[in-house]
């Protein structure tokens, strides 16, 4: 089963992420790839470079970023695993690196299952 893990940041110290953190993220990514679990991943540019398209009150509104809310989505990862707990374990390792290597950083990872063929199979 596939899980999409999105990482959102709520608070981070000024300045770029520490090099140690970036190295550790690379290493974890490689480990997850080589374990056959990580299928795809990508970092997201700040929402100031993006836009939002919404329907509100029957009107379609396009507004440029940055988005107002406090949580900025900064990356996603797509895992192929055998259980939710496995995806949670990878996500935990990922956020733990931030805790350990970038003091003051706060954020959250959402672990969401993608529908697959089994979801559309007839009842057994």
């Amino acid at each position: 089963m596939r899980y999409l893990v999105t990482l959102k940041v709520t608070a981070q110290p000024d300045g770029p992420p520490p090099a140690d953190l970036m190295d550790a993220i690379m290493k974890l990514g490689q480990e997850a790839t080589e374990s056959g679990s990580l299928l795809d991943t990508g970092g997201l540019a700040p929402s100031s470079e993006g836009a939002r398209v919404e329907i509100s009150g029957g009107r379609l509104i396009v507004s440029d970023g940055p988005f107002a809310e406090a949580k900025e989505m900064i990356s996603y990862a797509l895992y192929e695993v055998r259980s939710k707990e496995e995806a949670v374990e990878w996500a935990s390792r990922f956020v733990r690196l931030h805790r350990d290597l970038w003091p003051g950083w706060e954020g959250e990872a959402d672990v969401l299952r993608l529908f697959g063929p089994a979801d559309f199979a007839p009842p057994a």
Partner: protein
Amino acid sequence: MTVADTHRAVEAVWRIESARVIAALARMAGDIGLAEELAQDALVAALEEWPRTGVPDNPGAWLTQTAKHRAIDQFRRRDTYQRKLEQIGRDMELRQEWAEADLDDHIGDDLLRLIFTACHPQLPVEGRLALTLRLLGGLTTAEIARAFLAPEPTVGQRISRAKRTLADKRIPIELPPPAELPARLASVLEVIYLIFNEGYAAGAGPDWTRPDLCQEAMRLGRVLAGLMPAEPEVHGLLALMELQASRLPARTAPDGTPILLPDQDRSRWDHLLVRRGLDGLRRAEELGTLGPYGLQAAIAACHARARTPQATDWPRIAALYRLLAHLTPSPVVELNRAVAVGMADGPAAGLALADTLLTERTLRHYAHLPAVRGDLLAKLGRSEEAAAEFRRAAELTRNDRERELFLARATTLDQAAT
């Protein structure tokens, strides 16, 4: 977290870490059976301890350390293992000197050694499959038995017999010497592809596919691609599996009947797997000449690239099958070539090629020979002969879903004939 939650979390960690833990222990203990026992003991300890203490930050290292300590305790208790204790004790000191940096190199080598040992050609094929799923996939004997539709005791015996063979024949847990590498790698690739095929085209039983086995085989393929990135056939096999698996979502109708390639809704293909498969094939091509798996991936890629069945590059597929037949001559490859030729040059040309296979002893009970001939005869308007061929195919297949499919074709052709 409840105890049940923690148990599931421990299970997840086990799935992620067990192969590496067993691989490291196997190097130290020099015995795969012992390594697995020690790792299992560590798992039991984790199930007792983690619900109280929480899952440690580095659970893999915790499991390996715990297993090592248990090994030392165990050996201490038994005088007869004194020599081994010294050996392991010395090893232990060496391990403490491991720097973080070269830890990964060790893990990689350990895993490779474990894979090559589990897939050792001295073991019977079923033993290799079961041992690989157990040691590298972290599957329980019950899960393997379910996947292969075999009784659990049978699978248990295969595993213990394989371990005993490795011990009795004193097969060292090591990387094959360069001269043996091609043959040994071929055995590893064969095991992975057999696991995949067991899931993709379930040979017998009520289900057409068992996707979990496909997932597991692809995962093993990805692990191997990470460990042996310079081997074109490793990438070739992974690409082949990903391209074939990309069709899984479109391969079965809601009622469970199989949908064949030309009739599949291509928008339902798994396009992430298509992309990964095409990337992997490109990597294999860049690394050298395509081998049998790479060529099969190249054939699968022809289908993957075609947005409609009509857009399929059949002449290219026929040419690739000719290369494949040259590398690995086999009547089954020839039969596939007959299908491609039938599409590229017309059903008469395909049938002429398929007919040359009628005298092949090995295809005497192969359901797909009459099925292919039936299809070509149908295209030539020879409905009666075609229906007879499909009925023959239905008699030969062991897969229930496939039988229904063949019989349905026969019935349709009967109606066309009258």
